[in-house]
């Protein structure tokens, strides 16, 4: 498994911390799945922040703060600085939202913000599209990780454009690639890993499931299965049958 800015992850599952029915369920989802990275955010202090932060610390996971909801470079860069101080990490999941309905990243601002933050010493995890040229620009801006969307955030549609995601994997064989957003089912997560992605980041599919902890566990098994399958070099699909039992030596009985 590739490293993420020099850090080796214990497994390929990054899990969001939002939308769970309760903090206890959130905690259980992490404990039952063993996810090694938790995404977090910064919001106006309302009293609940300190308890939440203590719980995340107690989980002993790596923390990936986001810039969720930011629409401008300035907003995202300022949020990143605030996150670095609060969470004491150089890691930042850079989100620059360009479209209200699809939450599609504004890739032009994304590249600009990535460059500014990298120069400021951040280790940027850009939430991007599956566009190869944007990927190149992000790498030129100093990113060592790319996080293309599978489908719009929270949509649960899986990998909308598998062709593009496969092309991205082929184009950037040495870059750590994460499918971020759009995963709905363990089969989607497994598929991402079968394509050779290095990790999957998801939140809604687990947090909004009837039993989040159980779904988190299912997701972990799925990413691990997909990862093993990729390493095992799967067979190519074919149109016609090919007998698996040897034909030679079959008795003449008809």
């Amino acid at each position, binding site marked *: 498994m590739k490293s993420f800015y020099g850090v080796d992850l214990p497994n390929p599952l990054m899990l969001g911390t939002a939308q769970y029915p309760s903090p206890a369920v959130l905690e259980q989802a992490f404990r039952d799945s063993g996810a090694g990275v938790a995404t977090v*955010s910064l919001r106006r202090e*309302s009293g609940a922040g300190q308890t939440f932060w203590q719980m995340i610390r107690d989980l002993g996971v790596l923390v990936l703060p986001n810039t969720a909801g930011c629409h401008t470079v300035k907003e995202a860069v300022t949020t990143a*600085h*605030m996150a670095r101080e609060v969470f004491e990490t150089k890691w930042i999941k850079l989100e620059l939202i360009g479209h209200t309905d699809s939450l599609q990243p504004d890739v032009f601002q994304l590249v600009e913000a990535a460059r500014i933050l990298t120069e400021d010493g951040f280790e940027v995890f850009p939430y991007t599209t599956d566009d190869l040229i944007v990927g190149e620009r992000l790498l030129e801006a100093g990113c060592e990780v790319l996080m293309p969307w599978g489908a719009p955030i929270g949509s649960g549609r899986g990998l909308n454009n598998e062709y593009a995601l496969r092309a991205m994997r082929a184009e950037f064989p040495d870059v750590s690639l994460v499918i971020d957003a759009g995963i709905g089912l363990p089969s989607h997560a497994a598929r991402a890993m079968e394509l050779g992605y290095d990790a999957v980041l998801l939140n809604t599919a687990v947090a909004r499931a009837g039993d989040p902890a159980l779904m988190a566990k299912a997701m972990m098994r799925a990413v691990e299965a997909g990862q093993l399958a990729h390493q095992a070099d799967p067979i190519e699909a074919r149109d016609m049958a090919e007998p698996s039992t040897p034909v030679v030596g079959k008795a003449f009985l008809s």
Partner: protein
Amino acid sequence: MKIVLNGDPKEVKASTLAKLLEECGFSGRVATAVNEEFVPSSLRIAHALSEGDRVEILSPMQGG
């Protein structure tokens, strides 16, 4: 002095950002910005507040 704290107008006595945190009871791990500019914790003591300043005090929260 009247400022805007986390989007709400507020009358405060504090003359600096550090004193404002104290006055409003923010004791935990927070990040601060004044007029849309990040103010690192080390600079809060020296950061004087002015009438009408927009202060944001953020804390860790759930996120995806």
